[in-house]
């Protein structure tokens, strides 16, 4: 009977948590990247930076997702081939494998299916896979590299797979905040810690949680106020997930972006309307959280957000 009662008490208390030195917080540290094949990742890196993946060799993936600019391009909206203006702000390529779906409207369910998007988009790289394959086949350097990396050699599928391998390697662990989560108390300052407390208290944490600090759910933009009416000039890109499902309920619904390395990826939001983090946090306070905030609190939250900048290849971004 004692056993039964202890079972009862067990089920009353929270589920037992495995012994770990991690702090029990809604945000968890980014894991180290697992690399299965260095050849494939390095091949992907070359392809990612290769302008032959666009019409008339004008752009590479890295043009809009620069590893030097936090994995994005610092523009309001990206530019495609022949100077076309894109429709939406470029999201960061770093940690993109942690996103539950890809694109702002979540229309691709994996990195592999995401790759087709920008490549075939007339406003972006505007080229077919057959076109890319034809160009790469002329380069014996690539033909040899593919042979080394893949049993089946150079093919459309292997080009995509190599790019995805590279993208999957782009995790940014060991941010100062992650060190704090791993119980290194001195990793962040008291003011930054206070920023994190406010981040939770104001409710930002409701959506921005998990390893990617977001990137794992959809949310309506404008829960507590009509952001789009106030901003004006509504574009198709503003409709978000509605463009995919044509369901009224999905209007203005977007993937909640990851806040990892967010300090490096201004301007913010799908429309690139917030020039800096202070402006972005303020908009979130009004339209998403319905809270009245003070300048000091926002400043502290921004200090916290800056601790989310991680490392790539053991170097700070």
């Amino acid at each position, binding site marked *: 009977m004692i056993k039964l009662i*202890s079972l009862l008490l067990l089920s009353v208390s929270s589920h037992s948590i495995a012994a770990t030195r991690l702090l029990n917080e*809604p*945000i968890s540290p980014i894991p180290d990247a697992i690399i299965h094949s260095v050849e494939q990742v390095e091949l992907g890196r070359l392809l990612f930076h290769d302008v032959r993946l666009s019409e008339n060799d004008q752009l590479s993936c890295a043009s809009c997702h620069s590893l030097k600019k936090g994995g994005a391009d610092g523009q309001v909206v990206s530019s495609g081939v022949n100077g076309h203006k894109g429709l939406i702000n470029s999201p960061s390529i770093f940690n993109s494998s942690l996103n539950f779906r890809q694109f702002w409207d979540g229309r691709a369910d994996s990195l592999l299916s995401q790759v087709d998007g920008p490549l075939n988009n007339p406003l972006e790289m505007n080229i077919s896979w057959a076109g890319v394959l034809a160009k790469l086949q002329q380069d014996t350097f690539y033909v040899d590299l593919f042979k080394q990396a893949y049993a089946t050699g150079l093919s459309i599928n292997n080009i995509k797979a190599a790019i995805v391998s590279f993208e999957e390697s782009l995790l940014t662990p060991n941010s100062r905040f992650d060190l704090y989560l791993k119980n290194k108390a001195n990793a962040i300052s008291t003011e930054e810690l206070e920023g994190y407390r406010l981040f939770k208290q104001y409710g930002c944490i409701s959506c921005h949680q998990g390893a990617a600090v977001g990137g*794992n759910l959809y*949310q309506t933009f404008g829960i507590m106020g009509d952001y789009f009416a106030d901003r004006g000039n509504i574009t198709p890109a503003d409709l978000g997930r509605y463009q995919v499902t044509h369901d009224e309920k999905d209007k203005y619904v977007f993937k909640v972006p990851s806040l990892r390395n967010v300090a490096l990826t201004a301007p913010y939001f799908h429309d690139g309307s917030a020039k800096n983090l202070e402006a972005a946090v303020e908009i979130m306070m009004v339209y998403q959280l319905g809270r009245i905030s003070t300048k000091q609190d926002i400043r502290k939250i921004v200090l916290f957000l800056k601790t989310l900048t991680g490392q790539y290849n053991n170097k700070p971004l």
Partner: protein
Amino acid sequence: MNKALEFLLLFFMLATLVLASSLYSKSQVDHQSYQDQTHLVNQINEQAAQLSLAIFLVAEGERLNYDNMTLSGKVLKELNQQLDLSQPENTKLQQINLLLIEQAEKIKSLHAVYHNSLFFLPKEMNDLQVQLKRSNQSPILAIQLAALQQHLLLFNLSPDTSNIQGFQQAIDTLSRHELNLKITPNNRLSLLLKHAQLIINYQQQLKQLFQHIINSPVATQVHVVLTAYASHFQASLNKAENIKKGFYIATLLLILSVIWALIRLKRALSKLYTNERSLRLAATVFEHSPEGIVLSDENNKILQVNKAFSEVTGYSAEDAIGNNPSILSSGMQDSTFYQAMWAEIKEHGLWSGELYNRRKNGEIYPEFLRVIAIKDPQNRLTHHIAIFNDLSGQKATEQHIHFLAHFDPLTDLANRSLFTDQLKKSILKGRKNQNSIALLFIDLDRFKEINENFGHKVGDQLLVQVANDIKHCVRETDSVARFGGDEFIVTIEEPTYDELVLNAPIIAEKILSTLSQQYHLGTAHAYISASIGIAIFPEDAPTAESLLQRADLAMHHAKEKGKNNYQFYSEALNVKAKRRAYIERELRLALSRNQLEVYYQPQYNILSKQIKSFEALLRWQHPELGFVPPEEFIAIAEESGLIVNIGLWVLETAVKQLVIWQKELYSELFIAINISVKQLETDELSQLVKSLLERTLLHPEYLELEVTENISIEDDSITLANLYKLNKLGVQLSMDDFGTGYSNMTYLKKLPIERLKIDRYFISDIPHDTNNVAIAQAIIVMAHSLGFSVIAEGVETLEQEEFLLNNGCYMGQGFLFSKPVPTQKATDLLRNEYEKKPPQLH
């Protein structure tokens, strides 16, 4: 020999060859694909459950982020994409899963917002209230805000229709007020109202989605899919069997035509003239036959073998030619077998049958072999032709079917039928060798509750672990079987009775202690125990059936002895069984013979030492048996269903007595009456209680019905419906013997009970038994935190009273105050208490 006949022969041989080959390929059943599909569907089922669990953990606040949920959804989606959509049931399963995944996505979005507002609102209301009070500007606003606070609290505790309405009205009132106000903090108030409104809207949507998830038909559809797979698989097995028959006929025809060709060839050769085409033809048929063919001379020396021979046996033509076919011998058939075979060939010129041979690599395989003796026109033996099929594939299928028929697929243990067979054999052998055999009949205690509380899947998981544990407790010479449900049987054989009586308890002890470890079942933990009955052959019973029956009886004896123990079968048990039957018979008549009586035990306030309530307890005085212990006859009444009528009689008698007491002695007196599991399963219970209350004019709140923990709380159970109906009548419900059953938090939350009764076991030896002290404290704290009142039974010492007072339990029942007493004595107790002095406040 004319050309047309020859052509016909050629055509016939080719046709049978083609037929045989195509039939052969069609006769192969794809086991791998069946296993893969089943595995996939099981994985999908598992993953859907994982996803639901992840959702549940998020909803309960056990997980602080959505990563787990997201990952579960992703894995489920990937598995889902692997389903073979040529089957309509699979398409439906896929759609159900996609819906589940989509609903999970919606839950994340809604939950994030809902959770945030729910976190924010209470504090914001407080802050605003403080600000309003400080500015002292708008007392009405402060009052309305306070109302909103209260309604949020109610809504939070129980978001039912009336509380939602109340909350909504409070919001509406404040909104109207806000419109008329131009005072600060107007903006803050409107935000606050937005959050409140959002809580209502999102709660409704979330509730619906959770309902969908709970009712998601994944498991049902998985069952449909698996059933369909199994029947497809069975159908293809049957089909393959038929095709195989055709295949044998076709090959037989082929063989006949080859023989004919060979005879003709031989004739042609004997004429020293060859028809070269016919020869080549025969050679082609020979070479490409899907069956292995060996041509040997009259001394059985191999002359020629075909390709199929080499493929099956691993011996090339060079290896084989010149040797005797006995190079293939596996040694699995003895020499009599071969002697009989050759005798038949000699006599009838033909032999066919199954035997085991050995491949060149040493592997033994089954084959279907036909041997044909070829004779010349003078009827002299000239050659042998041996034709065979490799049956390994078919044997594997047969073995699988054998396995299914004889083993329990869940635990891999022998099943009931195999066990019974083996036991019969052992007993026959035992009679011959004077061996002793013991059966250990093992039944898990409270397995039913685990199944009900955690689901069958978890129950199955537990059975697998238990099966493994039992296997580890026995020696290699003992055998373990699953007899059905949660029953296992261990068979122990020993050369002597003395050794058996020595070893059987050791093994039983080992099993009991091994099974009482903690079991981890996914995220749940469970403790179980077992009851074991031991019967011994030939001392206890002479046959398999009776031995089993005795072991079963002994197991029940172990259960009665409080479970978690083992009992030998003994003649004393038979006596006991007889008494039980007698009691049942007499109990049927006890009511009409006025042998039953209700006793009353006071429930009192430990502080004031005043009687607040009586618990009605049933007593039975039998003219021959005397006073029958209630533990004994109530259990029998429960099992036989007699409790339903007896229970109603107790209810009626006790309620009427209470009404008299209330009128004459103490108007605030309560009564507690036990309601049995069986009564709760009857449809009319609440109606009967209602009419009793109406007839006696008793205010319902004075009636307290005590239920035990082992009631069924499945959503659609009559029991749960009854409890809610009773609760609606205004009757109080309490949980009797709390702590001895399988309650958990979810269970308690689900029931409309208002009071916990701590079982006497946990009160005994307080304060000396530190375990009991801790447990009783925990129960009291938990009861308070869930808003239940609490009463302790079995209070026998002043120390126990003091402990209860110190720990916040103010109601008690037990011998210290009074044992259960007849009506008159109870009336006296009440009179002493209340006649002289007016009742005090409790």
